[in-house]
């Protein structure tokens, strides 16, 4: 089945099985997102891609496109909600962009800039989160994890392993490692695994590679995340 949906007054075609975000991306319409990545099972956890479909809030990354849908993506209300969600992600973890090696290449930072996030709005949790530096080549800095589940899906779907999981609920939610000790060094992960490279923030990093890309040449130094995401995701789609 194919058909047309209308996003913010623009008619957009879709193909059978596409989600709203997939149809929008193919048509060059950016819907902010963090946990969505083409080629991975939709997860719908970050809620940044929330759009109004026929008046009802839905996650664009999980909601199937259907003929005749009216979708509101870029309204003041949607953008404010997204800004608040992003602010919550910042205050929940410990994100110190000025010294973070992912700065300039970080999707969370990129989305925050895109949404014109100028302050944290909410009080910081200042939660004491641990680092796992046990692996010789890969570092986990739990301070920066936003629980997007991409590393979990990458390990399962791309690497054929099951290295990561999300444990706990709500405020007790945390990224865990599937190994006897709970440490990354005792897991099956390899530095070349997709799971080691998929993190949209600076939570999972390849050791000793930080700051090698000069300021001015980083992904979001000169381009908004909307432009980068549309180009990358449409490239990936063609692959």
């Amino acid at each position: 089945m194919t058909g047309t949906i209308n996003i913010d007054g623009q008619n957009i075609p879709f193909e059978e099985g596409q989600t709203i975000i997939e149809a929008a991306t193919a048509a060059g319409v950016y819907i902010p997102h963090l946990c969505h990545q083409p080629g991975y099972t939709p997860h719908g956890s970050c809620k940044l891609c929330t759009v109004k479909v026929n008046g009802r809030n839905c996650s664009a990354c999980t909601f199937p496109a259907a003929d005749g849908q009216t979708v509101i993506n870029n309204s003041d209300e949607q953008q404010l909600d997204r800004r608040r969600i992003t602010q919550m992600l910042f205050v929940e973890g410990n994100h110190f962009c000025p010294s973070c090696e992912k700065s300039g290449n970080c999707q969370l930072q990129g989305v925050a800039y895109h949404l014109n996030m100028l302050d944290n709005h909410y009080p910081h949790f200042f939660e004491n989160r641990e680092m796992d530096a046990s692996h010789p080549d890969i570092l986990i800095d739990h301070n920066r994890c936003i629980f997007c589940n991409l590393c979990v899906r990458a390990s399962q779907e791309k690497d054929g392993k099951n290295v990561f999981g999300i444990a706990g609920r709500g405020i007790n939610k945390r990224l865990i490692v599937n190994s006897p000790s709970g440490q990354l060094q005792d897991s099956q992960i390899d530095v070349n695994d997709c799971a080691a490279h998929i993190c949209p923030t600076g939570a999972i990093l390849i050791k000793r590679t930080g700051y090698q890309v000069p300021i001015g040449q980083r992904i979001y130094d000169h381009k908004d995340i909307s432009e980068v995401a549309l180009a990358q995701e449409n490239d990936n789609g063609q692959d």
Partner: protein
Amino acid sequence: MYEHLETAQNPANLKRVVVDPVSRVEGHGKVTLLLDENNKVQQARLHIVEFRGFEKFIQGRPYWELPVLVQRLCGICPVSHHLAAAKAIDQLVGIDPENLPPAADKLRRLLHFGQVLQSHALHFFHLSSPDLLYGFESDISKRNVIAVLGDYPDIGLQGVKLRKYGQEVIRMVSGKRVHGTGAIAGGMNKALSKEERDYLLQDVDQIIAWADASVALIKKVHTANLPYYDDFATIRSNYLGLVKPNGALELYHGGIRAKNDLGETLVDHFDYCNYNDLIHEEVRSWSYMKFPYLTSIGKANGWYRVGPLARVNNCDLIDTPLAETARVDFKQHSPEAMVHSTLAFHWARLIELLHCAESIKTLLHDPDIMSADLVAKGEKRYEGIGVIEAPRGTLFHHYQVDDNDIVTKANLIVSTTSNNMGMNESVRQVAAEYLSGQELTEPLLNNLEVAIRAYDPCLSCATHAVGKMPLQLELIDAQGDMIDRLVRHSDGSFEH
């Protein structure tokens, strides 16, 4: 000297005068005076009232973050912290300074010359020139850079443009004017492009000319006010800084030279990796800032001064021609082997500014700065020490890491810390010689700030320690009687 004014014998009935905050310096500090009934100064102290804690919170972070993380200590000399940390983490990846690729070494030097140039220009023109041009006790409304721009537009604008040029050098090398990246373990993350080099070259001759003129200006101001300028806040001290193997002025890498007040060499070409054998730090109960001293001389007399005055005093020559001529001129003005005048910090600072401008031109003509050979790698080590001459003086960064590349221990001895005793002595000299016995007014109190300002202190850099501060907690009831007391000593032990 004036150490007898550090602590008054009977402070209870003395009048307290506070200068808070000390203005036109980086960071937050205050001066307290205790005066008797005749307005005679009985106690004078420079207090650093802010607290940072960098040495503690960088523990647990991966070492490659250090150059970018610790540069946040400061907004004026972040490049110095960036490069001192980079030199330390070079050692963690097995690279000693002599093994750094020539391109990386020269790019770091270029970055550092830009840094010292902009910092010295900021300090002289923006922060100190109002005192020097209008007088120490002038109307407070005149003591700012806006007034300088109005009354002396040529001088003011040259200052602004000199600083801007230094910041542009930093931006071209590290990507941002403040808090860029650039240095990574074993090298640099980018070379200069031809366009970037040509952009910087187009103004460099003008910058050298303005820097040369600034030296002439400070010489004129200083010599026109002799002997006052040679006496005000002046103290005799030891001096410490890096020098090149041939004894020339060095800002990026060299051996440590220390001289005493007579100009006699105490140590020379000392390997800074053994700095622990040379320097210890004393903690005093009334300041967050430590008091370093040369261990061979001891706590009482081993304190020393660092920064432009120490460096220009200590070196045998400067390897750029205009700055060398200025250095010879500077030394000739003093009848002694060492120039002790605290206000001569300004003169020495502008000689260094000229040296930086000349050195930037030399480096911009060196093709190595456009080379792609930027990073070297060696065998992992567990300890790294980086020392550099920051604008304000010798800066030590010392780190230890574990098997997982995580920082387990950090020690920073920041330039301003080394000048702690010097600044306090200068404050006490001014208090004793220029203020004592007078009715204190705001313009008169500015004399204290002029003395501190000469050192160009960075108080936010200097207060980074945690856990070593002696503290005394007293519980006092409504009648004023002490009912309990707990003391923590600087060695961490408690007394109840």
